[in-house]
């Protein structure tokens, strides 16, 4: 059943997880995501699920590890410093090929930083974060409705690929209240990132070996060559994900004077700047990655064939711009392309006017 309500981002995400069939949530307090565990503590018992507050982030992610190994849809959430603490568990989950959803309602860093929204966990999110050769799928919503949709998709992609999936949203989105559309979860599976594909049975799960051969879930591979083999196998999976799952929103990118690119909150602000630029006779396109890993590099590269001007907007100090540069460099030299950065790190949020000002400086 679909539904439209007025709701806070963090609570909407929690509700979306429950509607997507998540029955195990393991949390720990940290601002600005505290509404997630609070909502789960109230809601999970109503649907026969389990809310458990761990004694640390490290414990919470390993509870997800345990529940996922048993075949359940499990989730944890935190904010930047807490996500750092979860990295060991995420690496182990990737190594063991366990599905699970981790939400990062990100705040400013490094260190304790502050509790303002930020995007400075981009590298941590898209490059692995923990130790070892691994990848996590990273989904970046820019509205509360999209936070709901991508949370549902996250569980599907996690199960499809047996891989941890990160939902990366800035504190702004977690704290924001707006009109939220809750799609029917089954219909979402048809039109969302799952695109109607059927999910494999979890026959690998540890459900008790009665009547079948014992199964193993482990990331310790000591036989000479075994770990290398395992890494190559994982790499094949990651290559498949890169081919299949990259998603982006493109608005008026053809024949634009400039392309504004950013994800999450920054894309939302860029959309407003685009309207303001239009009023001044400047045609701005928007390129917004929905998946940060895999990064929709092919699409961006295709746009770069016809376009030289890119303004990268990020609430971090030049992290996201690297992926833009790598994509553009596939088709032309970075001397030829003009890629500029509008960075607001440490909890700063760009104003649409700032974007408009930079665009006017860039365009002759």
């Amino acid at each position, binding site marked *: 059943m679909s539904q439209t309500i007025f709701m806070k981002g963090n609570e909407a995400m929690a509700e979306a997880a429950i509607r997507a069939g998540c029955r195990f949530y393991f*949390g*720990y*307090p*940290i*601002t600005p995501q*505290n509404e997630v*565990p*609070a909502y789960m*503590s*109230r809601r999970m*018992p109503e649907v026969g699920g389990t*809310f458990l*507050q761990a*004694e*640390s*982030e490290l414990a919470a992610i390993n509870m997800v590890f345990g529940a996922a190994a048993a075949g359940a849809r499990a989730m944890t959430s935190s904010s930047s*410093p807490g996500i750092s*603490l979860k990295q060991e568990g995420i690496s182990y989950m990737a190594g063991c090929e366990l599905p699970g959803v981790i939400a990062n309602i990100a705040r400013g860093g490094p*260190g*304790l930083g502050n509790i303002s929204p930020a995007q400075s966990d981009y590298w941590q999110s898209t490059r692995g974060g923990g130790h070892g050769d691994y990848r996590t799928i990273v989904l970046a919503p820019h509205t509360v409705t999209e936070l709901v949709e991508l949370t549902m998709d996250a569980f599907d992609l996690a199960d499809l690929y047996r891989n941890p999936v990160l939902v990366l949203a800035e504190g702004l989105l977690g704290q924001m209240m707006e009109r939220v559309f809750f799609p029917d979860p089954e219909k979402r599976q048809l039109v969302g990132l799952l695109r109607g594909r059927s999910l494999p049975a979890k026959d690998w799960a540890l459900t008790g070996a009665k009547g079948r051969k014992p199964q193993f879930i482990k990331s310790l591979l000591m036989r000479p060559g075994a770990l290398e083999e395992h890494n190559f196998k994982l790499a094949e999976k990651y290559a498949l994900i890169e081919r299949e799952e990259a998603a982006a929103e493109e608005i008026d990118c053809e024949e634009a004077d400039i392309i504004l690119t950013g994800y999450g909150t920054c894309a939302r602000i860029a959309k407003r700047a685009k309207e303001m630029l239009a009023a001044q006779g400047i045609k701005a396109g928007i390129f917004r990655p929905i998946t940060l890993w895999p990064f929709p590099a092919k699409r961006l590269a295709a746009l770069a064939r016809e376009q030289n001007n890119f303004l990268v907007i990020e609430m971090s100090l030049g992290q996201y711009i690297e992926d833009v540069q790598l994509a553009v460099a596939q088709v032309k030299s970075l001397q030829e392309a003009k890629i500029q950065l509008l960075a607001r790190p440490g909890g700063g949020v760009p104003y649409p006017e700032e974007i408009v000002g930079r665009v006017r400086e860039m365009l002759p």
Partner: protein
Amino acid sequence: MLNLKQLSLQEKKGLAGGHRACSGCGFPQAINMIFGQSTVPVVTTCATGCMEIATTIYPFTAWRGNFMHSAFENAAATISGIETAYRSLKKQGRLPGDDKMNFVAIGGDGGTYDIGFQALSGAMERRHNILYICYNNEAYMNTGVQRSSATPKGGHTTTSPAGKVVPGKVQFPKDLTHILAAHDLAYAGQASVGYHLDLMRKADKAFSLAGPKFMNVYTPCRLGWGSDPSQSMEIARLAVETCLWPLYEVVDGEWKLTRKIREKKPVTDFYKTQTRFRHLLKPENEELVKEIQAEVDKRWHRLLLRCGEGA
């Protein structure tokens, strides 16, 4: 030991006025009464929490001495590093051998009972010359009142909400002072900010001893507890009088009750003062309250035996 009057006359230590703790908050008084007992400079590390936030909003600080915050789980580890460096500097002759300094780590119950427990246990086992102070307000207050392993059974928090089916937190609190005493510390003490003399005596004693020391100090939180801020001290005493928070100390393995309770008040007397227990006073939770009272009685009885008080 310096009493309150002497404390007010001596050079100020601990926190300066103007910090941003709430009215009726328990920790500022506790900190000043404890720090006032130190006769030498104090180096402080602190876990993330209300106290860290309320006393050190950059570019301001309420701390009169050296203060360092690291992460949520690491106050005991950071003070271990500082104390080790200090000993090393002395050994190298870079500090005078007779130099004296106290090393204090502070954490709330979340940063001490839960996420900081590993670092705390490690520091105590290595027997650093430190005093660890837990200011215990029985939940994660800085992040908006989430349950901790110090939250009492039946307590309402945002992650142990009291409803029709589940009446608040399901578990009894962890007895951390006992656990720390089991580390065979130079000093372990349980105090309440409501009993000033007892608290200051304990701090004085702890500072006078070498080796690892621990104090668990009960400090009301009017926001998280839903209590009248003008009643914080009364409530901190009521916790003792109901035996929910007995006052005792363990010095070199010797257990001693520091406040005898001749007429134990029922736990409901304590519950009446705070909205977090409001639901427990309803008739449907009568059995639960009986169960809690029985556990409190049991723990009290066990403590009396440990302290050689008979019972």
